[in-house]
C-alpha cells in the first residue's frame, strides 16, 4: 500500500526545491552581470534584471519555424537540467538517488547539452553548427581532468554514491582539505563547464553570433535562459557537493527540519562563493581559441588531476579509506 500523502508531500517539496533552484540561478545571473559591471567600473543593471528579461522573452510573440526538433530543443534542455537537479543534493535534500549515482550523474549531465545541440543543429544555421562543434570539443577537453578528479574522490572515499560521500565529508572533513590539488583541477574544469571566459568559445557573441543560440528568439530564448540559470546551479552544486561537503553541516537524522534549513543556507553561501570565483576569472580574461583550450585542458589540469589521483591512491593505501 502506497502512502499517497507522503508521496504528495515529497513531490511538492521537490517541486519547491527545483523552483527555488531556477530562481536562485536567475538571481545569480543577475548578480553576475552586476559584479562584472562593477569590475568594469560601470553601474550595471539591477540584480533582478534577469527576471525582467525572462518575463519579456516569454511574453514575446514568436514566429520562428524550422522543424520539430528545433521546437523541442529548449524543452529538452530545461527538462534535462531539472532532472539533473533532482539527482543533485541541494543542501542535503534530493528526490532521486541510488547506488553509484556519481557515475550516473556524469551521463545525466550531458543530456541537456546534447538536446540543446540537436536543436541548434536542426536550425541549419552555419554559426550554430560551428558553435555546437566547439561545444562538443570543449566538453571532450574538460571531461578528461574532471574524470580523473572524480576517480580520485571515489578511490579516497571508496564510494560512488553522493549520499555516502556527503555524510563522510560531514563527519570527518571536506574533500577540499584532503585533496586540494584535485579541487584545483576541478575548479579549472568547472570554468569550462560553465562556459565562462576564457572558455566561452562555444558562445563567442563577437565571432559566431552567440553560436548555438543564433536562431533562438522570443519564447525559445526565454526557455533557454531558464535552462542556463538551472545549469549554473547544477555546475556550482556539483563542485560544492564533491569538495565542500554539499553544505551539509547538521545531521538531518538528529536535528530534523532545522537541519534542512541550515544546510540549505550554507549550501547557498557555498555555491555563491564558487560562482563568484568563476565570475572574477570571467570578468578579466579574454577568450581562448578552441585548440588552445583543448591543449590547456589536456596539459595543466590533467597533470594536476593526475598528481591528485596519485595522492588519493597513496592516502587510501597507507592511511586506509576515509571513515
Amino acid at each position, binding site marked *: 500500500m502506497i502512502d499517497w500523502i507522503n508521496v504528495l508531500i515529497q513531490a511538492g517539496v521537490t517541486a519547491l526545491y527545483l523552483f527555488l533552484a531556477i530562481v536562485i540561478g536567475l538571481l545569480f545571473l543577475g548578480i553576475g552581470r552586476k559584479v562584472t559591471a562593477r569590475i568594469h567600473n560601470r553601474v550595471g543593471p539591477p540584480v533582478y534584471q534577469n527576471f*525582467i*528579461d525572462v*518575463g519579456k522573452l516569454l511574453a514575446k510573440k514568436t514566429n520562428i519555424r524550422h522543424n520539430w526538433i528545433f521546437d523541442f530543443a529548449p524543452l529538452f534542455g530545461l527538462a534535462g537540467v531539472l532532472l539533473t537537479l533532482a539527482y543533485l543534493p541541494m543542501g542535503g535534500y534530493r528526490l532521486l538517488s541510488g547506488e553509484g549515482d556519481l557515475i550516473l550523474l556524469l551521463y545525466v549531465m550531458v543530456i541537456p547539452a546534447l538536446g540543446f545541440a540537436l536543436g541548434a543543429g536542426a536550425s541549419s544555421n552555419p554559426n550554430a553548427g560551428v558553435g555546437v562543434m566547439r561545444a562538443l570539443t570543449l566538453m571532450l577537453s574538460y571531461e578528461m581532468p574532471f574524470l580523473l578528479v572524480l576517480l580520485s574522490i571515489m578511490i579516497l572515499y571508496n564510494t560512488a554514491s553522493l549520499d555516502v560521500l556527503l555524510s563522510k565529508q560531514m563527519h570527518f572533513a571536506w574533500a577540499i582539505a584532503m585533496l586540494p590539488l584535485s579541487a584545483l583541477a576541478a575548479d579549472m574544469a568547472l570554468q569550462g563547464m560553465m562556459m565562462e571566459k576564457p572558455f566561452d568559445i562555444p558562445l563567442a557573441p563577437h565571432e559566431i553570433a*552567440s553560436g548555438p543560440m543564433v536562431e533562438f*528568439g522570443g519564447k525559445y530564448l526565454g526557455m533557454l535562459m531558464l535552462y542556463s540559470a538551472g545549469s549554473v546551479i547544477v555546475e556550482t552544486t556539483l563542485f560544492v557537493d564533491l569538495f565542500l561537503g554539499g553544505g551539509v553541516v547538521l545531521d538531518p537524522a538528529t536535528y530534523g527540519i532545522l537541519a534542512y534549513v541550515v544546510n540549505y543556507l550554507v549550501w547557498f553561501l557555498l555555491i555563491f562563493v564558487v560562482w563568484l570565483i568563476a565570475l572574477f576569472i570571467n570578468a578579466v580574461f579574454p577568450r581562448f581559441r578552441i585548440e588552445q583550450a583543448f591543449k590547456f585542458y589536456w596539459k595543466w589540469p590533467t597533470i594536476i588531476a593526475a598528481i591528485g589521483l596519485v595522492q588519493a591512491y597513496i592516502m587510501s593505501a597507507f592511511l586506509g579509506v576515509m571513515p
Partner: protein
Amino acid sequence: MNENPLPSIIPEKDWKKIQRMLSKRSLWMIHFCTGCGAMEMPPTMTSRYDMERFGIIPMATPRQADLLLVTGYVAVKTLKRIVRVYEQMQDPKYVISFGSCPINGGLYWDSYNTIKRLDKYIPVDIYIAGCMPRPEAIMDGFLKLMKDIDEGRADGWLRYRKYYDKYKANQMRVFRRWDE
C-alpha cells in the same frame, strides 16, 4: 504581442500594461552599423555612459533583439539587409534611426545610391538627430523610447503589419530585384 495566458484572472488591459513594463526595462539591441554612427556606440555601452543600467544590451542576432539601431546613411543595397534584419526580429520590435542621414539624407542628400527617408521603408519609432549625436543624445533617445513604450505610443511594429503592402511597395520601388 502574446495572448493573455489567464484571461479570467488578469484583465486584458493589465496584461498589456505588464508586457509594456517588461519590454521597456529590457531592450535588447542589435545595431546595424552602416555609417559613422557606430563610432558613438562604444562609449554608450562602456563605462562612461553604461547603457546596461537600463537593461539595454547589445545582442548578436536579430532573432534575439527587440531594438534595431540604424546608425548612419542607408544605401539601397544596405536597405535590403536592414529590411531582412527587421523582418527576422520578433514582435514587439522597435527601430531607432540614428544621425541625420536616415532622416533626410544628411550629407548624402543628392546621392544617386542612398535613400533619403528611412521611415518610408520601415517604421521608425524614435529619431535621434545630429551629425553625429553625442552619447548623451543617444541615452536621451533611449529614455524617450522607454517612455513611449510605457505609454503605448511606440507602435511601429503594428504599423508595419497594418500597412505592410504600402511599405512593401515603397521598398520594391528602390530594389530592382529582391533576391540579389
